[in-house]
């Protein structure tokens, strides 16, 4: 029989406000096995923990029940307390009387009643607890970063700095991501390329970092410290190690009319291409959908002009298998499609553009060589209207927009407006905004400068519709402060499109078994306290894949994710979760049912010799669980027809006891 101590936490008034903690600790005193019951204001505080330790010693407790907040919050805390008091940490059970009781029930009586029942269930369970010792597993000292934007680059550099090898997988032919497409960065107006490209070169030159560009992760198996990953290196029909990036092939390629993705289709590239001058790796790639040689076998010009002989039309996709200890997701974002926003005439006029397109238009390496010219006729626009929150904060229709605030649009629009007025002071610039959200260091000062020094006209209101008429865009909008409807003849309309997670994130999340929210952003293990970890151990989050972020925030999160990875890789061994399945070999019939349901392949069979009652021996096939591989889901325990399989920490008898306690 256990000697159980019950500790009821008030959590200030969080629990005590709706639950009569005194009554709960009194009621639980008489439960089977309970030898001590107390309540205290903050059980998780130093004093509360000392109280538990003292009670363990004084009353020779063998099991502890803490009636407090969610075990997801403080189970680890109280397990440490138990360990410090000399108990096995797995002799602690938590009754969740805050999140699932005091916070959701308003009435003192029902709250107290439920808290008592939850306490009884926890006591019933702890009575059947057994000490558990976690197993150990080795750590592969190599990290994988998925996505080569600024988030991935920074994470990889930081991990490599600590001396661990890192691989970056990027689906585009070059790393750099969205930041490589930007012109200037707010609020300092550094040129994006000037601060990004040195980092890209650092990545290329770092001996610890390998770049798999034009590649995708296709399969992930394993667990924290021991991931087996398959990476598909797509055929680029150019031998990466031989190509010097001289660009002779690009110049001579006769297929010149392929929309250039890097400039968002605003100009053309060749079928063989290098996305931009500072690309890393600076290697040509052949677009198989455009290349005449690959489609019809007619051409071969690039192979003829390549002095290095790097062109290989027969190249095949290659699968690389590698082991990793940690995985960082840095898949980033994309602007949403503007197709559903007919009112802004995006698909009707070339002069209605998104902010990312505007970014390319003003970039010196962009389609207009940095001159702000209208895409339709190449003329200089004199009146520009910026529209904020296009698709952001849109709760009316899930197919059209996103309910969340995209966070970066207010600032980049202020930047665009300011830079336009700076370069072309004769331009009228209007910004229609709902709220100007500028919470960041020097952000509001920046936005005010756009208004006060550069004369950008910020108008509180929204654009209702844009109608192309002749070479003008008729903009109808509201000015809520003047209480007027405005009609502006604009030359260029720029839409601050909402941003959404990259489409590759969802299948990747499935592979990694990392959870996502309804918007396909990765969820963090804890929104405040563990913001760069995914709930799946060994998977970390960096950048906009977790939520909309600007560059400074992305870089700091990338560094944080890197430090978590370094912390993991610095360990030689990981202590595993002891709550794993185990088979009672006396009951096991060796039927293989459990092996078939195990998602991790943790169950194998051995032939074992058993001594029979008549002193003969018999060889039987029985299941054996590998505790390092088992993740403790319990699928096998239900599948087992003989009842031999059970899950430590969540034994059949324990859950049954909980059911009984609740249904009493």
């Amino acid at each position, binding site marked *: 029989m256990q000697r159980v101590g019950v500790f009821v936490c008030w959590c200030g008034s969080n629990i005590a406000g709706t639950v009569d903690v005194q009554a709960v600790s009194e009621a639980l005193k008489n439960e089977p096995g309970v030898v001590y019951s107390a309540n205290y204001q903050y059980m998780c505080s130093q004093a509360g923990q000392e109280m538990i330790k003292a009670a363990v010693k004084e009353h020779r407790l063998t099991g502890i029940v803490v009636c407090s907040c*969610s*075990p*997801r*919050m403080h189970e680890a805390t109280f397990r440490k307390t138990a360990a410090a008091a000399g108990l096995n940490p797995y002799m602690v059970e938590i009754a*969740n009387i*805050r*999140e*699932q*009781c005091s*916070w*959701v*029930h*308003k*009435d003192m009586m*029902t*709250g107290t*009643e*439920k808290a008592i*029942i*939850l306490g009884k*269930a926890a006591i019933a369970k702890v009575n059947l607890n057994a000490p558990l010792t976690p197993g150990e597993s080795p750590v592969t000292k190599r990290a994988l970063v998925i996505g080569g934007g600024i988030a991935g680059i920074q994470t990889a550099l930081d991990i490599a700095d600590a001396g661990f090898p890192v691989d970056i997988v990027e689906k585009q032919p070059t790393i750099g991501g969205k930041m490589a497409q930007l012109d200037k960065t707010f609020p300092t107006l550094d040129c994006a390329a000037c601060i990004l490209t040195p980092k890209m070169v650092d990545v290329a030159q770092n001996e610890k970092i390998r770049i798999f560009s034009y590649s995708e992760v296709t399969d992930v198996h394993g667990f924290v410290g021991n991931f087996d990953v398959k990476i598909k290196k797509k055929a680029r029909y150019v031998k990466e190690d031989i190509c010097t990036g001289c660009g002779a092939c690009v110049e001579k390629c006769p297929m010149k009319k392929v929309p250039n993705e890097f400039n968002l289709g605003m100009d053309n590239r060749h079928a063989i291409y290098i996305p931009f001058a500072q690309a890393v790796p600076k290697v040509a790639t052949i677009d198989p959908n455009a290349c005449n040689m690959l489609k019809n076998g007619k051409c071969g010009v690039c192979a003829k002009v390549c002095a290095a002989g790097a062109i290989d039309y027969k190249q095949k996709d290659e699968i690389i298998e590698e082991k990793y200890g940690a995985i960082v997701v840095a898949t980033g974002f994309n602007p949403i499609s503007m197709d559903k926003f007919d009112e802004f005439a995006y698909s009707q006029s070339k002069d209605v553009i998104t902010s990312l397109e505007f970014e390319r238009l003003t970039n010196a390496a962009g389609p207009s060589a940095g001159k702000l010219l209208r895409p339709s006729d190449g003329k200089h626009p004199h009146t520009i209207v910026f529209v904020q929150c296009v698709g952001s904060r849109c709760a009316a229709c899930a197919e059209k927009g996103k309910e969340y605030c995209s966070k970066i649009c207010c600032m980049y629009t202020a930047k665009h407006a300011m830079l336009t007025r700076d370069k072309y002071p004769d331009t009228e610039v209007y910004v229609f905004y709902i709220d100007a959200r500028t919470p960041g260091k020097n952000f509001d000062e920046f936005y005010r400068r756009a208004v006060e020094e550069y004369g950008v006209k910020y108008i509180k209101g929204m654009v209702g519709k844009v109608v192309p008429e002749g070479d003008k865009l008729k903009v109808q909008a509201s000015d809520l402060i003047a209480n007027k409807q405005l009609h502006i003849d604009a030359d260029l309309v720029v839409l601050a499109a909402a941003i959404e997670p990259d489409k590759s994130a969802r299948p990747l*999340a*499935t592979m990694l*078994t990392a*959870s*996502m*929210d*309804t918007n396909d952003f990765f*969820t963090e293990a804890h929104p405040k306290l563990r913001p760069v970890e995914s*709930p*799946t151990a060994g998977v970390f989050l960096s950048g906009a894949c977790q939520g909309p972020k600007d560059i400074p925030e992305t870089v700091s999160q990338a560094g944080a994710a890197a430090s978590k990875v370094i912390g993991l890789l610095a360990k030689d061994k990981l202590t595993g979760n002891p*709550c794993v399945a185990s088979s009672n070999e006396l009951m096991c019939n060796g039927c293989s049912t459990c092996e078939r*349901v195990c*998602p*991790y392949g943790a169950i194998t069979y051995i032939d074992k010799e058993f001594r029979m009652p008549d002193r003969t021996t018999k060889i039987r096939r029985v299941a054996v669980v590998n505790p390092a591989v088992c*993740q*403790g*889901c*319990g*699928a096998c*325990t*239900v*599948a087992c027809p003989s009842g031999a399989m059970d*899950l430590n920490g*969540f034994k*059949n008898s324990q*859950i*049954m006891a*909980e*059911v*009984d306690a*609740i*249904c*009493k």
Partner: protein
Amino acid sequence: MQVNEYKPLIVAFCCNWCSYAGADLAGNNRLAYPADVKIIRVPCSCRVNPMFILRAFQRGADGVIICGCHPGDCHYTSGNYYTRRRMAALFSMLDFLGIERARTRVEWVSAAEGAKFAATMNDFAEKVAALGENKRLEDLRCKK
């Protein structure tokens, strides 16, 4: 027991990674649901042995709900698919035994869906309460 005082007894099995976190989120957001719902934490919805559900009904539970991650989001990759198939089989058997279908339910609640958790529990409790006390499987030996 008077009819208007009748409180159903509902056991909810919640997987540790999604639904239990969803229930915590409902708590964080103070979204009320009936106190009749008592939650048992399991690592994965596939840990729920049909025996537990039968035992609950035997001991006088009026409704049992199993909550897991959305299909495709299971922390253990495929656990909730097992749950879905096992429970389909079990519920049809319970149906055969005369336990109304509204007394049992499988619901997918993610860690971000605190509101859905509360709404589900409110709805389930209401439906179970409408059916009244469950006597069909009650084990008289368990009566005190």
